[in-house]
């Protein structure tokens, strides 16, 4: 009897597992190990001029898989096939897969197979790799990197690999990147998740999807409960089956013939332009257990953060700085009090480079340590401002390299950074304590990214991060020209806003004021600075003033009875940064800028002006920017006022030709010369 029953039972179990597997499995459109001759023969990718390699097919499939022993696990399977066209495409044959770990759990690659195909003398040669070829690097506490290299890669090779990652971190459902720095012929992603886990989806960037489906299937899992039954004669195992039916959400995306994404000058971070489907865990609720919420509304996020021990709770911690708080009590003006506390935190605390919205361990520890993440520093700042009766709130930010935020998709993971908002007498001020050179209301450029989310017990809100301050310089130059063409006089420069900020950083980088002046002299050969003075380098709340007494030896040329020179030799725009005829991605100057230069030249006795450049002015459409150039002569004095103002910071593809032409006109005008002639 035993001999006949057991196989049947085993068969039944096998059958059940098989049906379950098939119900779940979503197959790559290509069969691993089978390759088309045409693709091996292909020498150029017709859609593109040869970027080194092309992704022929990128297939991904994420599912939550049930294991009898361990319950649900997240599994991500990927099958990639790449054609290597040129040597520079070889890097696509070195594969690195980051795997997350935390405490005792870690993501693992459970299967891996791959091939390189070469066409040798009309025949296909095939080389295999498998899981044993993977090397694991333990990068740090949180990440392992699994690496492998495809063998025998040559120009013309096709490589493919397929792997499966198993993960217990439900929040780590694989995002899907559609486009890369090489073209993609076809990309497809499937996600199948039981109704017990709800994810928010974010589509970042734009990609034309040929399939964008969302459906539901009915699924079931079968528990097989083992029971050992002992009778007088024998012991055997019986199984009891229990079925659970549930819905599975199925997401399916396909895109085809996507061009490569390439970097261009003045481009916001390239990562923002890789179109991606992102998944964020919203809540988990298994049958017969309580629902665990992650995030889902902005209000929910607001409340969650306010209750969180490494965020909201910390906003009341202040005892570590009681001494300072006692001292600032005497400052009655709330804005002055804000500045005092802000400067105190910047002086006391050093940013460790880590971008985070949370406090690492506790504010007291961070304070003792004197260093911390953006979360430590700015939550401390917010807490101390609140302790000093100021209306301060934390603001979540996504830094420029972290991507644009989507206000329509509530999620915490859109943010990677926190700053502070203070309202004084109805006016908002933004503060970031990570950068010692920032005065109140001037943010480092990494923060200038669209909008921030204010976290507030009275309800969260958005705050614009568009800079209010510009990069502003006012330069006055007054020079005496002698008959040898040498010029003597002085330059004074006032820098405001980002110009002052950048200048302070530059001096710091050079080491000293002397070093900076030395650098200036080598940047403008012929310029000699006989004396100089800098004001307010340390006072962040004032403009930076610099004065130089100078001689310039070789700006003016003397030839016979003519002297000619370029009046704009300092801060001159002598090169148009925009050279490409057209551009795919926007130009981003980050903050507005304004440079005004006024010159007076006293020409030598016995000389008269032969020709002067003409005055002119032109504008960018929609008042995006303007250039003015006014020149006049009174007796022996020539005066010029030149002003370039870029009010608009963001120029899209359509506006690019105007910007390019604008800059090219500025370059031409700045190159024009003044000619003097000796009087007879």
């Amino acid at each position, binding site marked *: 009897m035993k001999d006949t029953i057991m196989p049947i039972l085993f068969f039944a179990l096998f059958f059940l597992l098989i049906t379950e597997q098939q119900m779940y499995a979503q197959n790559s459109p290509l069969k691993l190990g089978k390759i088309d001759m045409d693709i091996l023969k292909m020498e150029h990718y017709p859609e593109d001029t040869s970027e080194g390699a092309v992704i022929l097919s990128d297939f991904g499939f994420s599912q939550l898989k049930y294991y009898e022993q361990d319950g649900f696990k997240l599994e991500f399977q990927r099958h990639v096939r790449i054609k290597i066209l040129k040597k520079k495409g070889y890097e696509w044959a070195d594969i690195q897969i980051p795997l997350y770990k935390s405490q005792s759990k870690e993501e693992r690659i459970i299967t891996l197979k791959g091939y390189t195909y070469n066409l040798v003398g009309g025949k296909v040669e095939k080389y295999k790799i498998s899981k044993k070829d993977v*090397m694991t*690097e333990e990068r*740090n506490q949180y990440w392992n990197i699994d690496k492998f*290299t495809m063998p025998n890669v040559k120009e013309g090779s096709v490589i493919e690999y397929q792997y499966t990652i198993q993960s217990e971190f439900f929040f780590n459902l694989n995002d899907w990147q559609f486009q890369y720095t090489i073209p993609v012929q076809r990309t497809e992603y499937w996600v199948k998740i039981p109704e017990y886990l709800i994810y928010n989806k974010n589509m970042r960037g734009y990609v034309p999807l040929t399939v964008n489906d969302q459906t539901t299937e009915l699924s079931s899992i079968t528990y097989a409960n083992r029971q050992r039954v002992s009778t007088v004669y024998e012991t055997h195992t019986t199984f009891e089956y229990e079925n659970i039916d549930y819905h599975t959400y199925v997401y399916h995306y396909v895109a085809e013939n996507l061009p490569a994404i390439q970097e261009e000058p003045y481009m916001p971070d390239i990562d923002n332009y890789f179109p991606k489907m992102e998944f964020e865990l919203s809540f988990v609720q298994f049958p017969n257990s309580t629902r665990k919420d992650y995030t889902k509304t902005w209000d929910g996020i607001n409340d969650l953060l306010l209750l969180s021990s490494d965020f909201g709770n910390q906003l009341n911690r202040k005892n570590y700085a009681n001494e300072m708080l006692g001292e600032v009590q005497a400052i009655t003006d709330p804005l002055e009090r804000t500045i005092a506390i802000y400067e105190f935190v910047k002086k006391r605390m050093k940013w460790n480079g880590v971008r985070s919205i949370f406090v690492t361990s506790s504010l007291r520890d961070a304070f003792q340590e004197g*260093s911390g993440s953006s979360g430590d520093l700015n939550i401390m700042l917010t807490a101390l401002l609140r302790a000093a009766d100021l209306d301060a709130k934390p603001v979540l930010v996504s830094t420029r390299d972290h991507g644009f935020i989507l206000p329509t998709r509530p999620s915490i993971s859109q943010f990677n950074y926190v700053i502070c908002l203070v309202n004084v007498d109805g006016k908002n001020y933004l503060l970031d304590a990570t950068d010692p050179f920032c005065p109140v209301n001037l943010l480092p450029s990494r923060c200038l990214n669209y909008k921030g989310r204010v976290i507030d017990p009275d309800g969260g809100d958005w705050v614009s991060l568009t800079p209010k301050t510009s990069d502003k310089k006012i330069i006055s130059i007054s020079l005496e020209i002698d008959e040898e063409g040498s010029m003597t006089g002085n330059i004074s420069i006032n820098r405001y806003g980002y110009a002052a900020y950048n200048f302070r950083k530059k001096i710091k980088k050079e080491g000293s004021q002397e070093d900076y002046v*030395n650098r200036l002299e080598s940047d403008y050969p012929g310029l000699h600075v006989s004396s100089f003075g800098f004001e307010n380098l340390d006072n962040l709340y004032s403009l930076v003033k610099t004065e130089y007494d100078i001689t310039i030896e070789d700006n003016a040329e003397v030839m016979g009875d003519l002297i*000619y020179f370029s009046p704009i030799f300092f801060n001159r725009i002598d090169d148009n940064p925009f050279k490409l005829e057209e551009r795919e991605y926007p130009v981003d100057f980050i903050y507005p800028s304004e440079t005004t230069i006024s010159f007076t030249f006293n020409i030598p006795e016995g000389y008269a002006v032969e020709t002067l450049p003409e005055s002119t002015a032109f504008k960018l459409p929609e008042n995006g920017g303007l250039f003015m150039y006014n020149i006049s002569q009174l007796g022996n004095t020539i005066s010029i006022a030149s002003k370039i103002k870029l009010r608009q910071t963001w120029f899209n593809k359509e506006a690019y030709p105007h910007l390019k032409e604008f800059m090219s006109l500025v370059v031409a005008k700045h190159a024009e*010369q003044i000619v003097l002639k000796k009087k007879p």
Partner: protein
Amino acid sequence: MKKPLTFLLFILIAQAGLGQLEYSGLLIADELKADANAVILSKEVDFKVRSDKSAIKRTKEIITILNPKGDKFATFLIVYDNFRKPGCFRGTIYDSWGNRIKKLDKDDLKDESYNSGSLYEDNRMIYYEPLITKYPYTVSYEYEVVYNSLLFFPIWQAQPSYNISVKKSVFKVIAPEDYSFRYKELNVNEPVQISSSKSDKIYTWYEHDLPAIKKEPLGPYISEITPTVYTGPGTFIISGMKGNMESWEGFGSWIQQLNEGRTGLSESTISDIRKIADGSTSPAESIKKIYEYMQSRTRYVSVQLGIGGWQAEKASVVDEVGYGDCKALSNYMMSLLKAANIRSCYTLVKAGDDVSDIQADFPCLQFNHVIVSVPLQEDTIWLECTSQDNPCGYLGDFTGDRYVLTVDMDGSKIARTPALSKHDNTQIRIAEVELNDLGEGVAKVTTEYSGWQYDHIQNILSESREEQKKWIYGDKDIPGFEIKNFSFEDNKAQIPSAKETLNLALINYASRSGKRYFLPLNLMNKLERLPKNTKERKQDIVLRYAFVDIDTIYYYLPPSLEIEYQPEDVTANSEFGTYHSSVNSSEDTIRYIRHLEINKGRYTPDKYPQLLEFYTTIVKADKAKMVLIESDGAIGTEGLEGLRD
């Protein structure tokens, strides 16, 4: 000066309370603070040889950081692998007054993989970064590194970099009396002191009160200026392999032993090679063909694994997988040559386009790369095996012109890789510019880059046209231009060259003022910046590259413009090089020639003003403009109408 110091001391004692003055950065003498971002108050390094396969290095250091630029010296970092393991560690951070802020032990260190850019490596690091905002502050570290081989003897450099001064630094090597320990001293102020203790000999170097060295433009490497001691082992064992470093020959045989029996190839590869060899008329031809065969079958993948990163992967494995690191690919190349009965040498080199040369007379570990040399009767052929594009026999500035160790069964020895003369490193340009009567023009520019100037564009040659176009826009120093057409031609000769042909539209090239146009003569090879002026130059001037640039530019004028003024020819001769610019013109044609030669050489510091003068002459001459004037009757034009407000 005395008074303020007493006063300061008083404040210090008042402020410090229980602070320890020896850790306070406030008492450092001005001489040590000048040009310094950090001060090594005290550093002691003891390297003790414990047996023939084990050593321990103990370090105690106290460093004061004076400003944010010195923060990097406060970071504690040890890179380790299977042969070097970190031992004990203790650290303390002190504030300005010498009060302890933080105590550190091993748990405070982060342990991560050390990513030097290699794809595969087993190096790891432990590190700690104190983030302190108040200067000065002081760090004190005490730590050990345990070596399970004597291969790795330290190189001691009193000042690890520019802008750090030293109050006191001691380096000791403790070795058994009978161990043949060797050393070489450079720039030391006090020679070694040798003493004995039990059965050990102790070698001690002591340096004190070294002011910080400021980096000067075009200066030598810091390792050539600061007190430095190279040390090297006698015999050593690593993973059971015994070696002797007392001579290059000994080290060479160890390398050879390490790679012994790793040259086997598949039958089909051997038969491929035999065919190539049989079809060639000379060894040089065989070598070139085999080199190209190797290039076509392999690619470079960086690997840092195995015996201290020293053993080459088997040739049969490279044969199978088609990739490897410099060792694997060099060994593979040698195996291929061997199959054709050509003898070649595994050659160790310290690679880099900006590194100091090795101490050729002192055998110790100084290399980071491997190439292959093939001794032929009349000449030696050098092969870089990690590049798929490199011309056969050509070494660029990554490995050229330096001492290397050639490993050979008949005796390994130091050799020197070829240097290219300035006449090999050339950039020869001929351009024709046709100007219209608005001062715009079209240009046809042909430039040939050779030798090390070829290295500058080599990578571009294999890029896509789109990338090449971007590169041209970024690289060419012309204020406004558009590319109409372009092409590149690669000539992989032994001294390689590439020809670049550009068809450009020049926008607003000659700027107008009234009826005059100012035509810049130097189209696209201007020297615009000078090296920084250092008031009192202390260091030698080192010009590392010799080259020749010749630009010949023809300008064809429209009938509406005639020449009003022509700049003088300029000649500058100096020991650093020569410069000559000349202008010839007829009624409608201008020919401008710029000829610059720079010599390689080392010059005393007092020559710096002369060098600046030489460069200043060039900068000025490169700005030269021709003045053109509208002939009577020509009509001026307004270019800005379109956008004028």
